[in-house]
């Protein structure tokens, strides 16, 4: 029964290819001149409700563009596997624009493969491209911390225990910024709110994520968000513990519509269509691309039914201020949770400040440590 249904799914997804499933598929797919083959590489499954799904949704938009062939590979490890996958896409499929999307692909893998393939453009998500790195490599990322700040506002209004929770994978800058932003958003509602963080140590480990979520609920947290590759388990477990949830990476509202407040989502379609258009037109792409809500790199899930009018007002107001530019989450004076000063009076780190991308602290009010 299983195989029957799955078989049908495969047949339907490959309807167009069904007739072409011959030896003809062996050679490089025929391309008209001016056409472009774009490769997307994911570290996990494409439909994980999270990191990989967000990229795959972007890839799906590219797929619909005229004259573009999209090739994809899932579950590619951050080892020499990804080097071989990139080479294979270049050698066998003639891909000239690659999006290896996992952070761990950048150094050393992309940096090693790129110089051998000067005619191919490598665009990497999250990496810090700097002068001296190969010119055919670029990095892009979004100011998702702003999304977590907005999550925090929704959470700050929803929490009754004044304690919110964060399930995090590893204490790295991208994650720390999200945790800090989530708490600071909540503290913009009520400065007594605390945020408990639990690190699972893994990007994708279902049982640990569920245990961490339960531990947060046991510790009294009543609004929970996360930064792991696939948030499905955290969202479902938290909702089952009667906690409100804020999404991350993609829209998870369907998993618990009543409990879902909002979510910080990627909107990679903006970035990908832009880069593909530029490549097809022969225009250069910046090696270092960043953007936020205003640029359409990130977006917020529609507010859920549990969001109060007061929360909605503050959410929309803050969102408008972020969109108008210059908004700073880390705004001095501010201390980390060990008592060290991280921003002095008058010092503010705007969303575009590259210093945020090497954040190594948790702000005051976060219960947790970075090592």
């Amino acid at each position: 029964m299983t195989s029957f249904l799955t078989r049908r799914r495969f047949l339907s997804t490959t309807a167009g290819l069904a007739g072409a499933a011959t030896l003809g598929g062996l050679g490089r797919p025929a391309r008209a001149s001016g056409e472009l083959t774009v490769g997307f590489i994911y570290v996990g499954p494409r439909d994980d409700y999270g990191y990989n799904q967000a990229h795959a949704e972007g890839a799906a938009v590219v797929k619909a563009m005229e004259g573009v062939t999209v090739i994809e590979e899932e579950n590619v490890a951050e080892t020499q596997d990804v080097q071989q996958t990139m080479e294979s896409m270049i050698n066998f499929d003639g891909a000239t624009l690659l999006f290896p999307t996992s952070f761990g692909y950048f150094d050393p893998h992309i940096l090693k493969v790129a110089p051998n393939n000067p005619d191919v453009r490598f665009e990497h998500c999250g990496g810090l491209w700097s002068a001296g790195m190969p010119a055919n490599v670029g990095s892009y990322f979004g100011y998702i911390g702003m999304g977590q700040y907005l999550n925090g506002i929704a959470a700050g209004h929803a929490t009754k225990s004044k304690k919110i929770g964060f399930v995090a994978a590893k204490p790295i800058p991208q994650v720390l910024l999200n945790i800090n932003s989530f708490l600071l958003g909540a503290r913009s509602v009520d400065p007594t709110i605390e945020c408990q963080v639990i690190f699972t140590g893994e990007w994708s480990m279902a049982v640990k994520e569920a245990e961490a979520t339960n531990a947060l609920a046991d510790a009294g947290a009543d609004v929970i968000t996360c930064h792991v590759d696939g948030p499905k388990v955290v969202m479902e477990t938290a909702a089952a513990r009667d906690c409100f949830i804020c999404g991350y990476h993609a829209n998870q509202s369907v998993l618990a519509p009543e409990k879902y407040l909002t979510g910080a989502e990627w909107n990679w379609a903006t970035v990908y269509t832009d880069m593909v258009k530029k490549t097809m037109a022969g225009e250069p792409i910046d090696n270092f691309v960043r953007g936020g809500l205003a640029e359409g790199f990130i977006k917020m899930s529609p507010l859920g039914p549990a969001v109060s009018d007061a929360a909605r007002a503050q959410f929309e107001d803050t969102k408008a201020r972020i969109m108008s530019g210059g908004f700073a989450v880390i705004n001095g004076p501010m201390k980390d949770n060990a008592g060290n000063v991280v921003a002095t009076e008058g010092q503010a780190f705007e969303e575009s400040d590259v210093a945020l991308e090497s954040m190594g602290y948790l702000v005051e009010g976060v219960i947790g440590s970075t090592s």
Partner: protein
Amino acid sequence: MAVGADIPAPATPLRAWLTGIAGRAEGLLLPVLALLAGFAVFAVFLLLLGKNPATFYALVYKAGFGTAFSWNNTLSRAAPLLFSALCVAVPARLGLVVIGGEGAIVLGGVMAGGLAMLLAGWPAILAMPLLALMAALVGAIWIGAVGALRQWRGVNETIASLLLAYIAIALMNHLVEGPLRDPASLNKPSTAPLAESLRVGDLPGWNVHWGLAVAVVCCILCWVLIERTTTGFGARIAGGNVRAAQVQGLPVTRLVVGFTALGGAFAGLAGYFEVSAVHGSANASLASGYGYTGILVAFLARHNPLAIIPVALLLAGFEASSGLVQRRMDLPDATMTVLQGFVFVSILASETLTGRISLTAWLNRKDTA
């Protein structure tokens, strides 16, 4: 493996030679037939899904073995598998089932990454062998401890090595994100990058690092040790029957600890090459499952160090073709795992036919006729 060894010695040198050849051919023929049977079963599986098996196998051949790039791809995937398979095959000669090579790989890698920070100014000719040696040593201690626990405390080596692998991965994560973390490794916590002079390069003319050559040499040396030395002979006796070995006065404890440690040393070397030739620093990517794939390679090779080489190549070739199959046929990435499952069940089950399709028996029948 000398399959013809138990055949009675025929009368003439020519027939002896023929029988020897026939014995070897049998040993080869059977797995190849089983491989084809596995392919056939998988072809039916594909047909049921409405996919063309001919296209599939052509793609596997092309992406695994069909072009120079494919060979680069396959060979570079094979290197860590050779080492990790040795970590299983060597102790297996004593009848020990060690399944925790992954632990020795990650700790070997951490040792290489951590120690390299201290050796930054050293000349490469001293530092590189020292790094490799220390990585091997950590692996040897880790898996050797499994042998020691078995001999001195009677702890089952299979469960101990598995538990130690999980502990090793936790240690590795703790070290690369804590004490050994390079503060500049922002979003991918790692040890400091190895100095350029300490990096292991590629084999001339290939995109495959030197670890492959070292691994092949290690396989050959292990084969010599097991098949051609008295130590290896003693190990095989002890593997067959511990009591008999003890009665014979064989140093069973030394053999058990020595062979487990030797296996662990190879896994440690795998970690060393991952760090010095692939990643350039030690980080969580070290735990990528090579240790577990190595178990499969070793069992398929019937723990024969020489047979490990073709088996690892076959497996690596399958994995090398996974991407192209995914992209061209719109099959999920697990397709190759399913194929491997069918093929390996088929090969392992075919061992029951050993001696049934016997060329040697046919030779002997002609003799008696």
